[in-house]
């Protein structure tokens, strides 16, 4: 086992760090306050090749490995979880199914512009009545001649109003439960497809989240993604990668919490000494550092294991569960260490606190992760 970064991984991390420090951190407070999605930043990330990071060059990507991807997510999340989440949703959820299950023609038409950074992608799975219980999907797709006719609504979709292409799931065989779901590619502008109102959210406010609404939406027959009725299996595999991505986001956010809390504790003087000299504060910082390191190295290792081709269902759930809860605890403690300053928008930890909660909910709640782990244990 070799736990050293390659020169290329180091350079990719530095690229993401420099980008975050120069072009994300100075602007993130404004994006968070206004809830505006910084599309111009994504154009820049596209130019730098980040939007197609893990996909092969023949499909417009950069052909980097999963660990490099994890490092980029971590660095971006240190600056803005909203930006990092939208990036993760584009790569892990939007592009990955196109890459894994798309035909040559579908990849050429949809994956290439996404990987080249000209388009953004989103993934439509969650519905008003089907979140954790994805088998209860209500959206339907019916073949009418050479077209699929789609009806239904997807909610809480990251990148919904920004995406040029959506990958969505719909029921194609009624009464078959999870074995009657298929995935489809819906380009922006397809007749009968529109984006609903954006949500006003507690956190990740600059990430774009809205509904996808299908009213007799018509797409060509060839926009079925992969095989008919295989949609459930496909998105389980997609979500494994997504959960690894969310773990990386959590690591980045937890690091940001520790950095802010440590810096403040070393500077703030009370009762004649810096806060960092008080054991009550030291123990909080030590816990943050310990959990962060465990989450980080578990996530890094899992990225390598994923590239070896292993099935990572249980491990991805463990990574996501542990890292997201560690990040939420780190954010809570960071606010506590900063006291009243932590509660004000003068310091970024209040944003970290609001953002952290999303990590325990999106791409499978903590409860679902525990369920997945227990199921994998044979319960």
């Amino acid at each position, binding site marked *: 086992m070799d736990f050293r970064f390659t*020169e*290329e991984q*180091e*350079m*990719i991390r530095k*690229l993401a760090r*420099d*980008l975050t420090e120069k072009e994300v951190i100075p602007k993130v407070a404004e994006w968070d306050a206004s809830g505006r999605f910084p599309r111009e930043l994504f154009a820049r990330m596209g*130019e*730098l*090749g*980040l939007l197609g*990071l893990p996909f092969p*060059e023949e499909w417009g990507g*950069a*052909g*980097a490995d999963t660990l490099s991807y994890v490092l980029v997510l971590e660095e971006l999340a240190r600056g803005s979880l909203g930006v990092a989440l939208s990036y993760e949703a584009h790569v892990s959820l939007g592009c990955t199914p196109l890459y894994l299950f798309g035909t040559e023609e579908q990849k050429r038409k949809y994956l290439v512009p996404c990987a080249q950074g000209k388009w953004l992608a989103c993934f439509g799975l969650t519905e008003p009545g089907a979140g954790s219980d994805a088998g209860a999907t209500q959206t339907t797709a019916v073949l009418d001649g050479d077209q699929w006719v789609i009806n239904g609504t997807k909610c809480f979709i990251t990148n919904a109003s920004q995406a040029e292409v959506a990958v969505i799931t719909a029921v194609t065989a009624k009464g078959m439960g999870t074995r009657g779901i298929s995935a489809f590619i819906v380009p922006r502008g397809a007749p009968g497809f529109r984006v609903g109102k954006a949500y006003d959210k507690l956190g990740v406010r600059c990430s774009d989240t809205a509904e996808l609404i299908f009213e007799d939406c018509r797409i060509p027959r060839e926009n079925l993604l992969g095989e008919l009725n295989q949609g459930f299996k496909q998105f389980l595999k997609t979500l494994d990668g997504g959960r690894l991505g969310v773990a990386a986001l959590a690591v980045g956010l937890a690091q940001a919490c520790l950095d802010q809390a440590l810096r403040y504790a070393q500077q703030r003087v009370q009762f004649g000494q810096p806060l960092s000299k008080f054991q009550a504060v030291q123990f909080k910082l030590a816990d943050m550092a310990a959990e962060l390191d465990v989450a980080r190295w578990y996530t890094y290792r899992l990225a390598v294991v994923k590239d070896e081709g292993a099935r990572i269902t249980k491990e991805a759930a463990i990574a996501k569960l542990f890292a997201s809860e560690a990040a939420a605890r780190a954010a809570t403690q960071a606010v506590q260490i900063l006291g009243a300053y932590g509660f004000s928008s003068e310091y970024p930890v209040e944003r970290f606190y609001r953002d952290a909660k999303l990590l325990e909910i999106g791409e499978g709640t903590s409860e679902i992760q525990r369920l997945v782990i227990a199921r994998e244990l044979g319960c």
Partner: protein
Amino acid sequence: MVVLVKHVPDTEARIAVAGGGRSISEEGINFVLNPYDEFAVEEALRLKERLGGQVTVVTLGPERAKEALRTALAMGADEAVHLRDDALEGGDALSVSVALARALKDIPFDLILCGKQAIDDDSCQVGPRVAELLGIPQVTVVTKLEVDAAARTARAQREMDGYSEVVETPLPALVSAQKGLNEPRFPSLPGIMKAKRKEIKTLNLASLGLDASQVGRAGQGAEVQALEVPSRARRGRILTSDPPAAAAELAALLRGEAKVL
């Protein structure tokens, strides 16, 4: 075009003196491409984009210095040359310049670019010395550069204290870059992936055709006697009395304690 680069500790590195007291400890230090050299690489890439040609980056240093070359390749440089030999190590600006100038005899160029100084030893000498050894003109501390390829001349602007100077020089010449010359690009992801596949040419003492006595420690002109970390005891003092009294107190301190008046 040739760009001379150096791999240096980043500005946030905590410097400690190594055993022996004549060099810094490299343990735990993150090394980066010297920031002034980044301006030089960027300028070379912009000239290449405008006028064509090739950009070759050259460094002298230990094995880790390859990372500086790799960064320049990822930004878009075409070729890289690494002067790598234990005998080349531990020298000063003189012995480094001798080795670099020797290597440049075999690399065709119209222009050499380099940073105005390396941020580790701040000697500011290697660029000018290389130009002298090669017998070409040099313009240092440049913030604006225009190249007329047809006339084979360059116009360079130098920011001086309170005024700026415009210098015209025939090519080939050496130009050293000052902050403000440009905003260096980030190496793109495809650039990073391609850099991995580009070959770095390594030159050792024998392939340079140099004698060990001319280079490294043996060839240096000045020798570091001792390194010391500055004492941290010097702390600022804030005068809190009302302004007229504070001014009088300050004057007294400057005269009596600091002895600068």
